[in-house]
């Protein structure tokens, strides 16, 4: 029944929305003020697409009835990932994980390699994993994804439960979720992330009831439930498949790149005046012939390992000829020296360079070809060992700082299924100050945009159209910062200057706008089923500087290789007083809005403005200010005080 009403309101929202936006484009633009009229209608179109994607998400809302009984012999590794968190916190989570009822092994994945934590783990009989020696300083560490990938190589359970260091699991978390894997195609079961240190008013907007509710349930309906990094169970086989496919893809890509670069590298080497000896030219000819042949074999679909092996064999033989020539020349020199003065060359005559010495001198690290760096670089890249990574197989995606989203998307693209289990089975700790919270939101947004730019879901082969749009919907919401700026600018411009982006605020406008607005709010009310969504709405607008920063830094990172300025979200509260500087852009905008409202009213009193336009825009300003007022509470928030707070809810049997 809920589904019927939800779908009805979705249809209503789309009809009224398209009706309004079509009219806006076709008949309402004030072209004399195109510089604000056009941005505003684009922002409104953005919002319509946003709400349409939300409508599509909740269209297939899936309310699961619980998992079947899991096989008792399913083997599980529980991973607790930590880097620098408080040891008490890690141990509380680890010991709770140990008490999970279904048979399992508990592992602390300590990326900080802290001896104290190792001792604590041993003392309590917990597994303890740090990076293997393959993670040298020459390869990227890939943060949490690297930590998990490293642990995957050192453990062997069929399933993995991943927990952040602060996420204290319930003893029945596996019993409630493992049964979903009876379906052989299921690779992921995600449960909600819920925070126990958040008051009912949730001043920092930490709980995400809309996301861990209708949105995930809706995505689940499209077989696109997201992996959110913690409180999730994964099938190792699926992850490993992902790692292997990724390995083959990366290897082929780097071999293709190397072959493409080989021609110019060889040309460059030939040109360099240093290479005059005919033997060197011969070796270069050989390298060129070998790479050309490899290219042909690659086009013909040959196996990468064989192609690269053949190139190496051929080049090695050529290099050996070169070394042999050096040795022969050297030997001839020695003979001459000996002929000059017998006594000086040693007791047993002229020393002979042994074959194995020639072999050694021909090996990659000592090879004379190393002098031709560009050629050597091409040859090094023609390998299947993936020397630029700690381990060739990287099951968790490393293209983004939010490895979870990228990983799930690749799994979905390979045909695996996912489940969202709507029941709180772990209790975590949310940031307790604005600064930490902003860092966390920035990181999520950056990661999401990185995935969008690196592996745009809309063009990923293997994803169904619904899945593509479910991933795209989340990415789309993070573009809202730009729309927000326009939404703030429009009323300010009208109230200060009297410039209206629409031709007139008449009956034509209201008859289209108001039904859309009402349907839109109704949609959130019906889909949300009484969930408090206001806090989320406030923050999605109020954090506009964070969203813009995320988009620009992620774009710079993906396109120009610049660092993100990435920080691990601290779990402990940052000290210090209220930090107003964190919300400087929002303060500036709020002051501008307030000033604009006052000026607008004065202009109305002076007869310089229309009553209707002023009324609409002042109302708009008031709405914006109410939305942003949450930031004042956020700055003043002094952290969670549990005493007398009824917000620490009991476990809700909601949905399942």
């Amino acid at each position, binding site marked *: 029944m809920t589904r019927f009403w939800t779908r009805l309101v979705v249809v209503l929202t789309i009809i009224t929305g398209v009706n309004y936006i079509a009219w806006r484009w076709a008949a309402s633009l004030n072209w004399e003020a195109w510089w604000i009229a056009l941005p505003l209608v684009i922002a409104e179109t953005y919002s319509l697409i946003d709400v349409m994607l939300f409508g599509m998400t909740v269209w297939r809302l899936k309310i699961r009835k619980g998992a079947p009984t899991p096989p008792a012999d399913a083997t599980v590794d529980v991973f607790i990932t930590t880097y620098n968190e408080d040891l008490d916190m890690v141990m509380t989570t680890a010991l709770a994980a140990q008490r999970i009822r279904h048979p399992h092994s508990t592992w602390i994945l300590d990326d900080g390699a802290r001896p104290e934590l190792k001792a604590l783990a041993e003392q309590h009989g917990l597994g303890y994993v740090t990076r293997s020696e393959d993670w040298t300083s020459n390869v990227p560490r890939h943060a949490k994804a690297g930590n998990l990938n490293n642990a995957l190589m050192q453990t062997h359970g069929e399933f993995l439960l991943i927990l952040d260091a602060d996420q204290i699991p319930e003893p029945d978390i596996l019993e409630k979720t493992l049964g979903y894997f009876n379906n052989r195609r299921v690779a992921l079961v995600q449960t909600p992330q819920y925070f126990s240190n958040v008051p009912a008013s949730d001043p920092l907007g930490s709980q995400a009831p809309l996301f861990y509710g209708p949105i995930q349930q809706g995505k689940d309906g499209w077989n696109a439930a997201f992996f959110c990094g913690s409180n999730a169970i994964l099938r190792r086989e699926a992850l490993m498949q992902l790692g292997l496919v990724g390995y083959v893809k990366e290897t082929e890509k780097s071999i293709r790149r190397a072959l493409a670069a080989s021609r110019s590298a060889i040309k460059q080497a030939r040109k*360099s005046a*240093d290479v005059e000896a005919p033997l060197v030219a011969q070796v270069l000819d050989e390298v060129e012939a070998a790479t050309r042949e490899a290219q042909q074999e690659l086009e013909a679909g040959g196996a990468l390992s064989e192609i690269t092996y053949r190139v190496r064999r051929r080049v090695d033989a050529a290099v050996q000829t070169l070394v042999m020539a050096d040795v022969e020349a050297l030997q001839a020199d020695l003979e*001459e020296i000996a002929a000059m003065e017998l006594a*000086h060359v040693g007791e047993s005559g002229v020393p002979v360079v042994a074959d194995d010495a020639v072999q050694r001198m021909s090996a990659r690290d*000592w090879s004379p070809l190393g002098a031709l760096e560009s050629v050597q670089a091409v040859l090094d890249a023609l390998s299947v060992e993936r020397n630029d990574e700690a381990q060739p197989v990287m099951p968790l995606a490393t293209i983004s700082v939010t490895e979870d989203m990228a990983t799930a998307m690749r799994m979905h693209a390979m045909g695996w299924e996912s489940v969202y289990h709507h029941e709180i089975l772990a209790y975590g700790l949310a940031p307790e100050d604005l600064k930490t919270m902003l860092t966390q939101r920035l990181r999520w947004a950056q990661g999401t945009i990185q995935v969008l730019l690196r592996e745009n879901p809309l063009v990923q082969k293997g994803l169904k159209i619904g899945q593509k749009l479910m991933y795209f919907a989340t990415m789309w919401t993070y573009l809202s910062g730009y729309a927000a700026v326009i939404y703030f600018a429009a009323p300010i411009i009208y109230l200060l200057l009297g410039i209206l982006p629409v031709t007139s605020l008449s009956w034509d406008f209201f008859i289209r706008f108001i039904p859309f607005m009402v349907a839109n709010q109704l949609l959130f009310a019906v889909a949300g089923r009484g969930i408090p969504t206001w806090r989320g709405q406030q923050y999605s607008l109020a954090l506009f500087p964070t969203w813009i920063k995320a988009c620009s830094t992620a774009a710079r990172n993906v396109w120009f290789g610049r660092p993100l300025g990435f920080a691990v979200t601290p779990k402990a509260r940052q000290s210090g007083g209220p930090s107003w500087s964190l919300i400087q852009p929002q303060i500036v905008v709020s002051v501008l809005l307030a000033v604009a409202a006052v000026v607008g009213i004065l202009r109305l009193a002076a007869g310089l403005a229309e009553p209707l336009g002023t009324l609409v825009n002042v109302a708009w300003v008031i709405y914006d200010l109410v939305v942003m007022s949450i930031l004042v509470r956020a700055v003043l928030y002094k952290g969670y005080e549990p005493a007398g707070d009824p917000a620490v809810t009991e476990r809700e049997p909601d949905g399942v």
Partner: protein
Amino acid sequence: MEFSYEVKDSYAEVKADGRLNMVSAPKLREFVTDVIAGGSNRIVVNLENTAFMDSSGLGALIGCLKAARQAGGDLRIAAVQPQVKMVLQLTSMDKVLTSYTSAEEAFSND
């Protein structure tokens, strides 16, 4: 690779800084030949800053030795670094080219 030389009391010290490989080896040969032509036939090649040597580099050293001997002098090496030492041992060239700890020491006994 950079070469420099300095004429001392009883010998000329040649310094070869960088990687002694296929590209730089012919230059060393040329450089040392010039030093010999300039009148010094007792040469110490100071390898203190030579981190790497390949077969061509080794060939060049022996070539220089030959040139020094032909000029009636000798060539010695000093301050050999680990990789170069391994190459010398592996090819038994340590029997022909004794390495001294420092350039001063190389001709100190004769």
